[in-house]
């Protein structure tokens, strides 16, 4: 393993997650990546399927903002920087990581060591906990460019995460993430929200996944946000939808377990959450009771 840090590579990979601009062609070429995608492809992936925000994947609500974003913003402040408008966006986080590594290399040894530890903390606390699971889905769903980009980025970050000296305690986002609620105890709405919160259910459920569920179960797919779509799928045939979701969760658990890139504790966390979700969804499907599952909330 090289001791030099690939700072410019990380920075460049971050920039390539922005909306495509003419400059991206030269960056991609330097990295040996396919030609950058069209704006439409980019929007499909990052605006409709996989939102590149830590808060979406680590927050208990599965949405932008909330405590997860506040935690990330707090990190920016802790390292003496003003949080940008979207502090938890992948581009912002990779830019910050590269910037901290740059600063560490340019500082005196004592200051450099401090900044370097900040960079490690950023990787451990705010990037690794979600990015490997996320990039796995990018590689699944993306076109040529994004498949290659996602694969390269997770390789690079895997190497970074494997460097010695990182924190030994679990990332706070993961340690404090609530588990998926059981609707049989009366909180159907919370259960539904949890299915759309990756950190709770261990599955990144995209629009494309919901479309596949609808097609598999031969159900109507309503246009709208994911929760709206999911509610209406469940409203049509809860048993079939639960089964399909259970299958997705089982596949996700297997994928996390076999993930060669994520740190072992992170992979284990995601695999455990996905397996638990699969088990719960299977039980619910077997019980087949709309009233129990949805608590009358989703029809």
């Amino acid at each position, binding site marked *: 393993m090289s001791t030099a840090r690939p700072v410019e590579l990380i920075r460049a990979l971050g920039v390539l997650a922005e909306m495509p601009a003419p400059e991206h062609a030269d960056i991609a070429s330097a990295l040996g990546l396919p030609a950058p995608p069209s704006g439409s492809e*980019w*929007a499909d992936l990052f605006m409709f399927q996989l939102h590149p925000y830590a808060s979406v994947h680590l927050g208990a609500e599965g949405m932008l903002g909330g405590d997860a974003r506040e935690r990330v913003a707090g990190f920016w402040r802790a390292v003496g920087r003003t949080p940008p408008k979207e502090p938890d*966006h992948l581009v912002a986080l990779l830019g910050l990581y590269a910037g901290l590594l740059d600063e560490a290399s340019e500082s005196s040894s004592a200051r450099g060591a401090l900044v370097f530890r900040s960079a490690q903390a950023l990787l451990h606390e705010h990037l690794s906990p979600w990015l490997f699971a996320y990039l796995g889905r990018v590689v699944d769903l993306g076109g040529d460019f994004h498949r290659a980009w996602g694969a390269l980025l997770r390789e690079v970050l895997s190497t970074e995460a494997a460097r010695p000296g990182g924190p030994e305690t679990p990332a706070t986002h993961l340690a404090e993430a609530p588990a998926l609620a059981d609707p049989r105890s009366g909180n159907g709405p919370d259960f539904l929200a949890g299915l759309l919160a990756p950190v709770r259910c261990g599955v990144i459920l995209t629009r494309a996944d919901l479309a596949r569920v609808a097609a598999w179960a031969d159900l109507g797919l309503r246009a709208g946000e994911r929760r709206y779509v999911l509610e209406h799928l469940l409203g049509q045939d809860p048993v079939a939808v639960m089964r399909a979701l259970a299958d997705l969760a089982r596949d996700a658990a297997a994928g996390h377990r076999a993930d060669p890139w994520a740190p072992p504790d992170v992979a284990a966390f995601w695999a455990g959450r996905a397996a638990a979700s699969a088990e719960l969804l299977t039980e619910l499907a077997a019980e087949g009771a709309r009233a129990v599952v949805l608590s009358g909330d989703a029809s």
Partner: protein
Amino acid sequence: MSHDELNRRVSAARSETEARGETFYPGPSRVHLAAYPPKERWLDWVELDSRSWPERVEKRYTLVPTTCFNCESACGLLAYVDRDSLQVRKFEGNPEHPGSRGRNCAKGPATLNQIVDPDRILYPLKRVGERGEGKWEQVGWDEALDDIAGRIRTAMVEERHDEVMYHVGRPGEDGFTTRMLAAWGVDGHNSHTNVCSASARVGYNFWMGMDRPSPDHANADVILLVSSHLETGHYFNPHAQRVIEGKKRGAKLIVFDTRLSNTTTHADHWLATYPGSEPAVLLAVASWMIRERKYNRTFVERWWNWREYMTEVHARPDASFEDFEVALEEAYAEYTFDFAAAEAGIPADTIRQVAEVVAGAGTRFSAHNWRSAGSGNLGGWQVARSLTLISALLGALAVEGGTYPSGWNKYVPKPPRSPKRHPRKWNTILWPEEYPLAMHELSFLMPHLMRERGGYVDTYFTRVYNPVWTNPDGFSWIEMLTDASKIGLHVAMTPTWNETAYFADYVLPMGHGSERHDLTSYEQYDGQFIAFRQPVLRTARERMGEKVTDTRQVNPGEVWEENEFWIELTWRIDPDGSMGIREFFESRKHPGQKMTVDEYYGWIFENSVPGLPEAAASEGLSALEYMRRYGAFEVSRKIGPVYEQPVPHDELDDVHVDHEGRVYTRAPVPESPRAAGSNRLEPDADGRRRVGIKIDGDVLKGWPTPSGKLEFWSRTMAEWGWPEVATPTYVRSHVHPSKLDRDQMPLLSTFRVPIQIHTRSGNAKWLDEIAHTNPLWIHPTDAGRLGIEKTGDLVRVETEIGHFVVKAWITQGIRPGVVACSHHMGRWKPEGQPGQRMSMATVALGRSGDTWSLEQKQGGGAFMSDDADTMRIWWTDVGVHQNLTHAVHPDPVSGMHCWHQAVRVRRAEPGDRFGEISVDQEKAQAAYARWLGMTRPASRHSPDGTRRPYWMARPVRPEREAYDLPSPPPVTEAEPAGVE
């Protein structure tokens, strides 16, 4: 390839690119997730049809941007045009619009209601009975155009240019119409501004030489709003979203508002000031800052015209800055917290707390006053003067987080063929000599001035404007409009029926926001942008390959847009070009043919908007195609303190620096793609033009004021008869307690509701359902005192000229001792006339001697139409037209109508009916005469024999000679009372 090797390669590529002076990375701010269709897909956007569910039926749209035409915020809209039916299905926000950034209030999406309104006017109509009788016939555009053009042509041939008048509500466009009027050579531009914002404009203008504020709320640490800007302000939505951004950053919000508005609910400090006392509070804050030396001394010393003040007011030309500080402290010593507390009815400690917050803001202090207190009160222009005093003490002007002047945050591009001509005749009805310092036309006095001075307007256009309803004293307007000896021909250009159109000779149907071309730019943040309004169905059809040459081909019925109308009218006024007018609307590409709107805007976008052609070319588009596709373009951002910019070397030729440091040059004005500014600063004695100001040895651009600096003391005001108010001071309002009888209260009549905008939004069913009436806000203690038992009880509100009957709303949300009634409601149509059935009451107008009356015969209600929703209208109460009972109150300095009313409120009398109105015209004329008596006319006070300071802007500026008064001014005599 290893990561190290990739790292080396990308580092090398970066170094190589940057060594060429180019940018390797495209820059930040490109990552934000937004809930908008990505612009790459606007041409062909697919959504599932909600009505077809559970079937998955795809609907294909082409998304066409335009600009909202409801309020002056002019936010960006995105029309979803169904590609199959070519109908607009909905409007959402345009994320490419730099001002509104994709966000809209309810009025934007409700444009859909307006374009399919079953009661809208679809064809040109001509009166066939007496004016106001309600008999109309449909005519062709050609007939109307020929008739109108013929009259105008005759007036011009007979040198009666001042008998042509164009009276506009909110213009919603930059430059087209003023260019046309300049081409016509008529001094007939008449705005609504003196019933709107003129007061604030005067206050800002005499400080900065620019008449509107552009507060940078998003970056402020302290935001001070005089009134409810967060919900209904001038640039409501663009500013509101930035106020909230500022608050999210931790900014403190201070709100002065007599009502518990939505804005006050967001305030950290809410001051429910007694109406008109706002300057007293602001001056107390300033006074404390001055006493405690909590102001930016460096800025004040550098940029205030304090030397001029010390020389002219204290006769101390050699005074030091420290001497000025002493004088300043003395000048404001009387404005203590206790003084302000007594005037405003706010505890002194509260005002002190606010002062401490304000003083702690440093330069990150953004502030805004527009209508409200400014437009309500005698001397209301001192609200903006006093507010700017605080900004100027802090140095919080044209810096990040501060307040910018409008001119630096707005971009008006130069049009093709700018007429270099000015009207030769001064219009004395619009600009009477009694108001030399008014920023705008004395439009609301027109009926009185016409009556008193024998005025006559041969052709009078009301353009999307409704003075009978909007202005005070509407019965005087009806009298004027129905008098053929005063108005020869009245042409009402309007998309919908309004109270003024009933008294027209022609009613011409004009387009809504998605049916017309206009170009706009507004000062909404620290940047400059242009936005395009366009007929969206025309653009949609052109995307499908059709050729559209006239907007009437795509608009409903025969609805037209103004640009094409004016071009056609101008050609008919001057058919052979012999009058020298037609040339300004001739094609440059095809001489002898009419200029098209494509050519007009295409030329502007290609030649007058820096960066736009390049941005368009990068996408393979022409500049016009780019604007048709995206609807807006940001010209620049982060303008910063222009006044500190050095004057370029090549503009300094044979320079003369006068004793006040003003720098004059013989270098010509450099070519600029921007339209020329409106101020005309005087040249030096040798004819050199003013180019800047010398500060500490540097020649800087400074401020566009006569002194080149911020004018704490206004020489203009002092020399034109108002020396006692030439610095920011407190003028007691006409509704000050000392001027009211014991049984009178102030009535706030100007406040908006966020979902309506005067008469313009009255044909939007979604908005009408939310807000359709205007009860009288009254505090429980007042209601108890007056015997008003419950909300909904009828009350009679008596003004100085009449009364109206309205329902009471008993609420804690109004300061005790004050009542309020929103002015948005109370629309009406005379019996037998067409009109908006969901928002207008049917009324009987009556006159007996000097007394006019209005009686509501029927409220709103359900009706059959093509729109099933019109059968679901559940409301009948559409409010009361209170403005009819308001006398004119022209402020003697600003010319602004002072809207607040001194009223008596009592329980309705037996026989009083809801909506009833009665007005005594004799009293209305007496009120006009009383307020006119407070003026100081130019004929007695002009320092140079002219009608008006030449440096001050005018929409269509007459030639220099027209400024001369007809005879030399006599010696000044004893003064009338004036303002105290």
